[in-house]
């Protein structure tokens, strides 16, 4: 049941391929950059933080086939919706950008692959009038860390809830709603969680005035 990164790329490719990713900087049409044609970022040995065995064995843990594809591709420009990132450089292995409506489907892919929900992070990009939500997934038995991110307009920050797929997301979403005012559609109870019961302000927004 342990998924390899490429199978995940397939599934996300089909998912993302269906709906072109709206916002983000000009994204080439989904069809061109999807699927295994992606170049693998070279897990450069010397550049890893700790010289010597640590990063070698770290890379060794990655699925064997990734080591096989050690073609010296320069890391792809960060435009494609699905990228494999080097764990030693970024901390996660797969970075997928999906449309807000596809969050639940992405969560189901992750659930079927046996991943666990790690964290839901809200980021308030005030300059671009957007709010970014990053879902982190870890796998209890297989290596591989996946970050699924989506962007919503700041005026109407609305993302469907994944509490049905991952019950643990219930609390993460309530907390992100507390801090950013992100409305998780379908969430059973979005009342203030870390803030006092009668709190109506959202402190982590960039334009929050105490």
């Amino acid at each position, binding site marked *: 049941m342990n998924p390899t990164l490429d199978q995940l790329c397939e599934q996300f490719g089909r998912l993302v391929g269906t709906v072109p990713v709206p916002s983000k900087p000009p994204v080439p049409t989904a069809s061109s950059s999807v699927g295994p044609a992606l170049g693998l970022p070279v897990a450069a040995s010397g550049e890893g933080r700790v010289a010597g065995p640590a990063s070698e064995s770290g890379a060794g843990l990655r699925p064997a086939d990734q080591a096989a594809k050690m073609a010296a591709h320069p890391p792809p420009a960060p435009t494609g919706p699905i990228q494999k990132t080097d764990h030693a450089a970024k901390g996660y292995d797969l970075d997928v950008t999906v449309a807000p409506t596809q969050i639940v489907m992405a969560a189901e892919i992750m659930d079927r692959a046996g991943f*666990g929900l*790690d964290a839901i*992070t809200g980021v308030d990009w005030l300059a671009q009038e957007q709010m970014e939500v990053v879902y982190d997934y870890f796998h209890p038995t297989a290596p591989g860390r996946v970050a699924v991110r989506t962007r919503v307009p700041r005026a109407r920050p609305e993302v469907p809830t994944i509490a049905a797929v991952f*019950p643990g997301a219930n609390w993460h979403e309530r907390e992100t709603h507390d801090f950013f005012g992100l409305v998780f559609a379908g969430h059973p109870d979005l009342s203030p969680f870390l803030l006092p019961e009668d709190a109506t302000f959202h402190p982590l927004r960039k334009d929050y005035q105490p």
Partner: protein
Amino acid sequence: MTSPADSAVRPGVNETFVLNLGPQHPAAHGVLRVKMTMDGEYVMRAEPVIGYIHRMHEKMGENRTWAQFLPNTGRIDYLSALHYNHAYVAAVERALKIEVPRRAEFLRVITSEMNRISSHLVWWSAYLIDLGGLTPLLYAFDDREKLLDLLEAVTGSRLTYTYFRFGGVYNDVDEAFLRGTRQFVREFRPRLKMYRDLVTDNIILRKRLENIGPISAEQCRKYGATGPVIRGSGVAYDVRRAEPYSVYPELDFEIPTRPEGDSMARYLVHMAELEQSLRIIEQGLDRLPDGPVLGKVPRVLRPPAGDYCFAVEAARGRFMVRLVSDGKDIPYRVKLRTPSFSNLSLFEETSRGMILPDALALMGSLDLVIPDIDR
């Protein structure tokens, strides 16, 4: 006085009442409030209410420079402060691609494992106070004081450490620390055996903990519970092995797990982790290389724009820092994924139908630190 809103008044059966295991309660390990809808002694629904010690760590991350946020990391989960130092410092090193000398890496591992032992000792004494045993605290704190003396000599503080710096550690260790640590490891092993005879094999503890609050591996995955909770349910998930960092891949230690998944399993996983930490400390001391303890670090830290994560195995489970930087010298967003937050989220589902004392035994086995939940 109205009857509770969600009281299920079934004809002929007793009414339910809502008990506030309030913010001020000896078994709450801090200011966690649990609204328990009770039917007699049975818990029908235990809804944790948190936020009573929310201290805005993530908000402070956005108006402090990268170095000014360091003392905060020691005050999120003050029992395993060095692990939290490690995660934040290593995340920034990952962003800035800073080289850390090997001696500093070994010092980080040794002091982190000593911190894990002191955290497990506090958990052990607090958990047994919940179950009614008051004297183990005196034994555990006796050993812990020896440990704190050693760590204080090197780091300067007893509890909320800020020992790690970007690129290494704050200062080097001297001969007295190395000798003292070896002596501590030698003296602590027979003490562990005494704890086992006195408490672990005690029939009362067995009766109080066995098959209380069973948690399945699937439930752990669904809620994101990690650390001794997921290892108590049979899954050998440990960030030191899953996403190896620092010099952990070079050290050989096992990941203790228990298949049963009840409170006794989590208790035994904690106790087995104490022995593993002792092994790691010994290996770390044997292989401690010479050399500098602080690498080259740019004067002003401006990580390139983008987001970086770093996860460590803290005493309570997987702690991950997600930094979002926009190239300035102040972080754009600091996300702290703390283990107790997810570990507590499965308490509501697991404690349904238990009697109150068992629900408290379950909550103690989850090893909660409340500021770790509220951040």
